[in-house]
């Protein structure tokens, strides 16, 4: 069994990698397997986890779950052309719930928390060992303060980016670009590890070249 899965794994791995050369039947085969099997996988997960696990096993304690069931059934109504428009109700429900839920969530975590975290003293006799110890700290905090402020200016929609306002917005975009650069640098690392994992599989588990 183990032998089978290693060879199957190698076959599929190389098939996907062959896409880098160009689209070809091997890749198409792997793609077809992937799409079919994974769609099947997700039905099963939805079936056992959501329908059985959450609804069937939970509805006894919580009859409110019937609401979810009814909304779900309403989704299928679209298959009947005459009353198909009723299927918009569950959609409207989801849009309302998503909007309301995330609106408050983002207000708390993205606005209030982040603004609060930016409010710090630039210099302080209480933090660290006094003024002299904190040159770097002062610099860092100044950078955070200026960067956050100018970044917000960049996103301002009501004013053309001209004059002093434009210069500030430009400083803001500089900070945003550094952020993207940092994200990129950090991400590259992650991506390499994945490839390392795959090559490790081909050379080690399959070909047995690594001791």
């Amino acid at each position, binding site marked *: 069994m183990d032998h089978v899965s290693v060879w199957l794994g190698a076959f599929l791995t190389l098939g996907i990698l062959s896409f880098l050369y160009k689209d070809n039947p091997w890749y198409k085969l792997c793609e077809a397997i992937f799409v079919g099997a994974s769609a099947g996988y997700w039905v099963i997960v939805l079936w056992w986890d959501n329908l059985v696990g959450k609804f069937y096993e939970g509805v006894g304690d919580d009859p409110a779950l019937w609401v979810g069931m009814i909304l779900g059934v309403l989704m299928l109504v679209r298959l009947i052309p005459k009353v198909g428009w009723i299927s918009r109700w569950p*959609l409207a429900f989801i849009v309302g719930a998503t909007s309301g839920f995330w609106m408050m969530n983002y207000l708390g975590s993205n606005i209030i928390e982040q603004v609060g975290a930016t409010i710090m003293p630039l210099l302080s006799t209480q933090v660290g060992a006094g003024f002299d110890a904190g040159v770097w700290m002062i610099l860092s905090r100044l950078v955070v303060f200026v960067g956050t402020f100018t970044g917000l200016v960049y996103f301002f929609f009501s004013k053309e980016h001209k004059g002093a306002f434009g210069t500030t917005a430009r400083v803001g975009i500089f900070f945003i670009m550094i952020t993207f650069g940092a994200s990129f640098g950090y991400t590259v690392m992650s991506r390499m590890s994945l490839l390392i994992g795959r090559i490790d599989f081909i050379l080690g588990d399959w070909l047995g070249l690594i001791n």
Partner: protein
Amino acid sequence: MRQTIPLFITFFIGILLIIAVFIPPFGELGETFTLFFDIMAVFAFFLGGGNLLRVHINKLRNKKPDWPYSIVTLSGFGLMLAAGLFKINNPGDIAAAVDTAGSLFYFMFHAAMVPLGSTMYSLLAFFVASASYRAFRAKNREATLLLIAAFIILLGRTPFGMYISGWIPDEVSLFQIPNLAVWIMNSPNLAGQRAIMIGIGLGVISMSLRLILGIERSYLGGDK
């Protein structure tokens, strides 16, 4: 009428979830609605999965280009479905977890989906390389800053950062590349992240209000 009821539902549910934050007895409402959503997702799948089957059966029937692959897709789908639904080869009884080691479902997941998924994921390494060569160019000041920041972080995340900047005295140790990398992460990066986050927060609030108040209603379809 066909538009009014959905608009009202969106409005009512949206407002309900907003005020629920301030009313302790409604505190669990968000979680309950998440459960509703999970149940609805199952039914939505009847439509999605049905669509997948229809597309591939059509392809097969009309002998469209690449139709043989549709057979593979359909059989992969069917096999996974059967393996999971009937728990084929599951060492436990029917009550055992669907992904118990040894079952056909477990085998298909680990022998097929895992290598496929992680290889697809690892293609990124190649694309990172080609994008680095082709697209990360100092075309203007903004792009140059992006590049410099990326470069320092990259260096800082390899042992070379320390090798080439180890000579810098400890008083200004900030300029040693690994420390500089951490400083970039902690200061300018943090500032940019915050500005983006605050902006996103406001964008979400404004869009949510447009949806709840029915100003934005394109998703609802027309009157017919």
